[in-house]
């Protein structure tokens, strides 16, 4: 691996700038359910290029840029109009608009093609690998043109997000509240769309459009998995985008060599690496990650199962029966898998709430306490549901079975109070007394 600053340095800088510029705005696209807009704009700018060519009769970059931006804005406008006036779903109206514009652009380009070599690729679809070759002089240094342009776009977007943060936030989450506070959500929308078009076109021209389409969506979505605050979401998305861009170039240079190739497209690898970051976030995000949620659910299931086990033992104890310690019997009585019962039993034993002697399972003192609380909750709930909620006796058990696991001491006291300190539940079983509040 030999990276040179002149080449790889500038490629990475251009990638990072593009990623940051896109991610800044992408947050609001994701929140406004406009994620597909980047893709739509990237296809729709074609007629802009053709029109610019027809009007200016040149292939210079500026008219093309302006034409593309204008059509990009039109894409957003048409999508919004069709959505509003035709009452068509956002995705569908986007689909209608970008395919039609693309087709229009094709027809226009074909008309122009024989006249002169209209080379859209030269004008608008740059490759990130070539950025270091096209330089301009800035303050005495040779800087790639793409870096200059993307730098300007980053500053523009950052200023926009910083200055209108409150407005953007309000319009993204509660457009009607924003309107009632005197913020025009329509104008915020259009301002955002204009910047999206500028960012998209500037990025296509310098680094290619795979990168910008990915960077509009993936970093913000990753950040959205990680946080619930918009401020930190924007910050995180920028950081993720930058990291993804750097990793992407390194991966493009290195990964293919592991399987016998030289290198591959940097922009694509940047997209892939930010996709990797997203995958990690989806799986392991502290609050919303799939794995984390799964583990949390398993822990809850286990604690409920443990509750059920001590409850079962308590009821056996009430009837002066003993319980076989075999996992199988618990599993069949509690409708749980043997594995789950075994894990729950191990947990109970570790906590010292259950002991097993001579194949018989017994509650220890602390286990007895836990079971008493649980059964008391259960029976108080049953009493409450019958007396206060007018429920049929045959239906209360299931409800109480669910509620018992989430009932704490103060709530039990409340229930006790509300049901006038009952002695027995509707089925006639004794409601165990609380040790603390013996009445």
């Amino acid at each position, binding site marked *: 691996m030999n990276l040179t600053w002149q080449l790889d340095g500038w490629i990475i800088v251009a990638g990072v700038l593009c990623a940051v510029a896109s991610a800044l705005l992408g947050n609001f696209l994701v929140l406004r359910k406009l994620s597909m807009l980047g893709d739509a704009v990237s296809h729709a700018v074609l007629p802009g290029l053709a029109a610019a060519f027809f009007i200016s009769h040149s292939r210079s970059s500026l008219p093309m840029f302006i034409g593309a931006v204008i059509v990009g804005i039109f894409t957003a406008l048409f999508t919004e109009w069709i959505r509003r006036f035709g009452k068509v779903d956002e995705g569908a109206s986007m689909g209608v608009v970008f*395919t039609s514009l693309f087709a*229009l652009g094709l027809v226009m380009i074909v008309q122009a093609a024989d006249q002169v070599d209209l080379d859209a690729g030269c004008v608008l679809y740059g490759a990130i690998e070539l950025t270091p070759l096209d330089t301009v002089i800035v303050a005495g240094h040779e800087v790639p043109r793409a870096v200059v342009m993307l730098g300007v776009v980053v500053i523009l977007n950052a200023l926009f997000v910083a200055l209108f943060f409150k407005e953007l936030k309000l319009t993204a989450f509660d457009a009607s509240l924003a309107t009632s506070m005197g913020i025009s959500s329509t104008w915020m929308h259009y301002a955002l769309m204009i910047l999206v078009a500028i960012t998209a076109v500037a990025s296509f021209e310098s680094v290619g459009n795979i990168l910008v*389409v990915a960077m509009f969506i993936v970093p913000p979505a990753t950040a959205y998995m990680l946080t619930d605050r918009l401020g930190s979401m924007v910050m995180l998305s920028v950081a993720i985008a930058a990291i993804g861009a750097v990793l992407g170039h390194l991966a493009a240079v290195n990964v293919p060599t592991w399987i016998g190739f030289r290198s591959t497209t940097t922009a694509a690898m940047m997209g892939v690496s930010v996709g990797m970051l997203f995958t990690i976030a989806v799986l392991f995000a502290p609050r919303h990650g799939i794995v984390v949620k799964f583990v949390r659910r398993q822990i809850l299931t286990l604690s409920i199962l443990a509750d059920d086990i001590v409850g079962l033992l308590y009821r056996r104890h009430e009837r002066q029966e003993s319980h076989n310690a075999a996992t199988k019997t618990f599993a069949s009585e509690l409708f749980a898998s043997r594995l789950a019962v075994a894990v729950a039993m191990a947990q109970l034993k570790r906590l010292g709430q259950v002991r097993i002697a001579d194949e018989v399972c017994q509650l220890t003192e602390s286990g007895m306490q836990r079971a008493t609380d649980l059964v008391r909750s259960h029976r108080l709930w049953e009493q409450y549901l019958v007396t206060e909620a007018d429920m049929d006796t045959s239906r209360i058990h299931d409800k109480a079975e669910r509620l018992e696991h989430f009932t704490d001491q103060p709530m039990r006291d409340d229930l006790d109070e509300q049901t006038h300190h009952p002695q027995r539940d509707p089925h006639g079983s004794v409601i165990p007394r609380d040790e603390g509040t013996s009445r």
Partner: protein
Amino acid sequence: MGFKWWHGGPRRKLEVEELRLLRTTEPHWLTRSLLVLLFLTMHNTAFAQSPPTDSITDRRATWPTWQQIRSVVMLEDYNTRVVILGVAMLGIAAGLVGSFTLLRKRALMGDALAHASLPGITTAFMLATWLGYNGKSLPTLLIGAAVGGLIGVGLIVLLKSQTRLKQDTALGIVLSVFFALGVAMLGMIQQMKNGHAAGLETFIYGKTASMTRADGLLIVIASVVAIGGCVLLFKEFKLLCFDEDFAGSRGVPTRWLDMSLMGLVVLVTIVGLQAVGLILMVALLVIPAASARFWTEKMWQMAIISALLGTIGGVLGAAASALFPRLPSGAMIVLVCAALFLFSMICGRSRGVLVRVLRRRRLNRRVHRDHLLRGMYESGEGDGNGEAVQSRPWIAVDTLLQRRSWSRRELKRSINRAMSEGWVRSDNGTVGLTVAGFIEAASLTRQHRLWELYLIHYADVAPARVDRDADAIEHVLEPELVEELELLLEKSPIRIDVPISPH
């Protein structure tokens, strides 16, 4: 050769020839002649009869001769026949499937899965090449694309159901990351000794050459499968689209249904993709369905209209391109579909913009007329001391103006309209009810007051507010409802033709 420039691939230069590739479903003879003669002549040399034109800067489309038109309309040319038949079948299938995906708010699913098929294609190619088979054989690539598309769709559904991300974000993520992965793999494939990637990415963008007989056959088979699936599972899909939870509660296996619907989308998209290209495929899935939505509220009608519009768009577009060789057929099909969409959006019978505007205007007019008549009737009542009015006095417009918060212009306009409808007479600055107008006004006032009474008696609305509430609803009271109100209020002491105002 292909479309690399479009997605910013490693190649920067776009040859005009590559632009030809964008033309998707061109008849064979057209493509060939165009590729050869594009820069030399404007006119269609495929037809010997066409008079030669000389200017190479001529941008006008050459009008087709009668023979050309006939040859296209009668489907005389074999390739035109294949293309039009293929596109028509694809239009039906995509229109049908698209109407379900549209209602499930997954209109852009086709776009996402088409992009997602690229890594599938490249993987299939690499595997096949490494195993020593021909990587570019159509079945290999088709299977790879289908697998890639299915994985993409599965991930989209998974992301949406298992995380807090919304549908559109899930679509966008799968689209961009999968596509990036595919391009990255393409970058590597280009370095393979025996497998230059040429033609691989054109799989996604439609083929350089026109639709062949094999393509046509493939499309027909896939379309028949998709149409058959939609027809057989129509009821279930309908339930899935409108009320997934209800369907689930009725014991319909929603997950399997969803999977099979998505499977049909993948099938149609992948098969269409390699024949007609990505953009056209997306357009065929989205536009006809979205257009059909404007015409009807019934699912089966929507599906049929959507299929019909897809077919019309496909056939007209392909025919236009066959007649005017300078118009690329894929783009023409999209544009015809877009025109149909625009027409539907404006003129659609049940949701079109015009119909909705008309409906609203009619309601507004009726509301204004009701207000005018009731205002005049109540003015005639004077202070409303319990006597129902029998006379039809002349009322000054200025007096009426003060009865409601309406502008003079509004009032004037309502008066004029009511005059032309025969409810009202006018005599310099004063207006009076005609006999018909009087009867109508009495019944309107009665409705208003009945509703007021109802609100006071049964809905516990304060008398001070009741006028406003009654105002809002009186215009939509059905005669049956008025009768019911009467029954309800039968025991109330004030049961006369027009109850006294409770104010």
